[in-house]
């Protein structure tokens, strides 16, 4: 059987923001560039299609940013969310490079909007893509195509030929056939493994069966696995992933932004035994966003219920599914299939413990409980105004932390020591270098754009010299 063959200067594996930035940057350096994207055209771009903004340092306000955001401030924010789980030199290098990314990415056709609505207060630090992440991707693909970058969709890479730390070729499954693609350099920008339930189980056990995946089913981490198997050094905790609590009625994959719920602070959260298990008023929702996925994952059957009453219904962003409602707590328990008496007791005990205070959900107010095993320390109000509402929630997985170690040139490092010759990686597949833990809005896009561009230019330089 004759094997089909292709060859190019730079092979970019993946189709998201990092991949396209790499492809465009490499093409602008004069290299022939081929992008192979595992997903069909509609689903191209992995998690990028669900993103909305990007965080870049800048010294002054711009048309779309309300004030300066210095490198130092960005570094402080990164240090705080990662709790030190970051490669300082690499992170600072990225933050410095982020300053010119807004200009560069705009030159590639990406457009930004003034920060308008929603509950996020990121107008100073983050630039919002006009039309969202898919609009951003569309612009990058249009630019790439105009420049002459070739893109193949539905083309998952099934094998890599790596010889002594040097990339030779990739085998991609295209139209039912294996195609060998030889290239002078490789940019791996194929994302994490959050859609690979079997891999998630290695860290989380059977619980992972009940996880919902917020992005596309294509982020299976196959390329990451191949790279690690070929001697590339790993970075990041393989058992960890970014998990938030999302509506339990969301589809298994790709429910995206509209399944998020930001009403935890307004009510109480109970597990399937109708017991509270954490302080819902600990901090503002954006800051505590990422802890509730983990908390729910630790509960029986990985499910929980946010319960609130009529006075809170309109205080938060609407979401896709309507809340489940009932005229009494007992009826609500019945509808949710929770033990009726237990829920009535939990709510009754909670209500009795609520102290007088003046409610204000925009500050740490003085509404709190006293005398409970698990207190609610802010925004505690009695659940007493019917109708009562509930949202069922499950862990929603956004991304994973395990990746490939890289240097400032985005060149992959070998576990045995030293850098690879012609292998670069960018985006979520190497995000763990910068973001070993936690998350701050828009950092994923910064990592993707900055290291995508660096990787693309490095790959082109290698290929053309």
């Amino acid at each position: 059987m004759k094997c089909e063959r292709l060859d190019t200067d730079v092979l970019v594996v993946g189709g998201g923001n990092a991949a396209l930035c790499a492809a465009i940057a490499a093409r602008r350096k004069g290299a022939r560039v081929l992008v192979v994207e595992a997903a069909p055209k509609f689903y191209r771009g992995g998690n990028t299609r669900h993103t909305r903004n990007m965080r870049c340092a800048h010294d002054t306000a711009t048309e779309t940013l309300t004030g300066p955001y210095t490198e130092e401030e960005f570094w402080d924010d990164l240090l705080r969310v990662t709790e030190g789980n970051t490669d300082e030199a690499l992170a600072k290098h990225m933050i410095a490079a982020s300053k010119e990314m807004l200009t560069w990415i705009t030159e590639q056709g990406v457009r930004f909007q003034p920060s308008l609505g929603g509950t996020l207060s990121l107008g100073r630090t983050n630039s919002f893509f006009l039309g969202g992440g898919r609009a951003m991707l569309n612009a990058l693909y249009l630019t790439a195509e105009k420049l002459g970058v070739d893109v193949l969709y539905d083309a998952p890479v099934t094998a890599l030929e790596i010889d002594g730390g040097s990339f030779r070729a990739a085998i991609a499954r295209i139209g039912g056939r294996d195609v060998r693609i030889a290239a002078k350099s490789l940019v791996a920008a194929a994302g994490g493994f959050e859609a690979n339930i079997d891999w998630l189980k290695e860290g989380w056990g059977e619980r992972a069966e009940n996880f919902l995946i917020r992005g596309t089913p294509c982020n299976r981490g196959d390329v990451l696995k191949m790279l690690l198997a070929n001697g590339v050094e790993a970075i990041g905790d393989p058992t960890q992933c970014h998990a938030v609590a999302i509506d339990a009625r969301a589809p298994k994959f790709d429910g995206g932004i509209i399944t998020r719920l930001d009403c935890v602070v307004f009510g109480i959260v109970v597990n399937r035994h109708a017991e509270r298990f954490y302080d819902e008023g600990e901090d503002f929702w954006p800051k505590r966003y990422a802890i509730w996925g983990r908390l729910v994952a630790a509960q029986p059957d990985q499910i929980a219920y946010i319960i609130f009453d009529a006075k809170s219904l309109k205080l938060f962003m609407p979401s896709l599914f309507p809340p489940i409602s009932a005229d009494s707590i007992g009826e609500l328990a019945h509808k949710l299939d929770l033990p009726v008496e237990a829920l009535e007791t939990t709510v009754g005990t909670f209500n009795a413990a609520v102290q007088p205070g003046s409610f204000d959900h925009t500050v740490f107010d003085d509404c709190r409980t006293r005398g409970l095993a698990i207190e609610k320390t802010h925004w505690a109000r009695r659940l007493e105004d019917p109708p009562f509402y509930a949202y069922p929630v499950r862990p929603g997985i956004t991304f994973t932390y395990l990746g490939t170690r890289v240097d400032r040139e985005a060149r992959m490092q070998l576990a045995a020591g030293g850098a690879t010759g012609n292998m670069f990686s960018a985006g979520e597949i190497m995000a763990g270098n910068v973001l070993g833990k936690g998350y701050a809005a828009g950092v994923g896009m910064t990592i993707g754009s900055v290291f995508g561009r660096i990787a693309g230019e490095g790959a082109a330089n290698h290929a053309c010299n």
Partner: protein
Amino acid sequence: MHATDHLNEADRLMTVCNSCRYCEGLCAVFPAMELRRSFADGDLNYLANLCHACGACYVDCQFSPPHEFQVNVPQTMAKVRTDSYRHYAWPKAFQPMFERNGLAIAIVAALSVAGFILGFALWHDPSVLTGTSGEFYRLMPHNVMAGLFGAVALYALLAIVMGFLNFWRDIGAGSVSAASGLSIWQAVKDVASLRYLDGGGVGCYNADEKPTDNRRLYHHLTFYGFLLCFAATSTGTIYHYVFDWPAPYGWTSLPKLFGIPGGIGLVVGPVGLFLAKLKRQDDLVDKAKFGMETAFLAMMFATGLTGLVLMVLRETSAMGIALAVHLGVVFALFLTMPYGKFVHGFYRFGALMLYAAERKADRPATVPTTAKA
């Protein structure tokens, strides 16, 4: 539940969009939606008429088909919009005109043209149709012409105004004083520039995901062509009655200076829009209303073309026929205006006025309770 399946689907989509909001910078529809948590029929009809069908939100949406959420705002809004034209039309007895609008307009147009030709021939002897004098009013006295067209224009105006008022009440425009001077001025600016047909800046989406600005250009040619032709007719009427200067007019007269570029706009614009329509992705349009939209473009085109032809042929023996055809077309245009795509301009203008008023008041309009399902 809403009055129609299209409204129910629009409600579902607005719930999805309201929980996403990535599109809020693209056009007026999404910020207007964000002011609301639930949607009455009137709200949805307002949003549908605020939509310019640029397609950007479809191309940019992570949930558009084949995603299981099946979010297709431009197509759903197009369906709700065309339903709204029928729903608000006055008098109610003529609402069925919208069912087979293309056919209805074709029949009315054909009958009108034939009527004028026949009328000329009967009024005078058939030879006037082939005369070479270039004098229009030998064929039909000016007062008759003005009377006939004045009557049909007044009827069209009445029907459009009544329909518009139905719409205006249903969307609750009065609750935020949407008829204020500032709102009108803002809407005039938005209409004049087709502000929301730019896909958020790059143009709108037609055959594929590559945006172009063609539709805006052709719409401008059609719209300003129509306005110029309207100005030509109006100045001609003023010349006749105020200054006692009967047609025909010289090349540098106002009716000619308005009419010639206007006629060219009305020929080029609709052709461009029609070709763009043929190439447009099926996903973005309400295919069931292809006939209505095509009939509208055809009437615009025919008005412009017959006007230009008449001008060229006015001193030949073909003048009589050319005049009869042009008058027939214009008569049919006036008669059918309230029952076709022409009304979109008025409803969109009204929606833009309400949008301007809502922005100013920073609250949504309150729709009358009778409009709620």
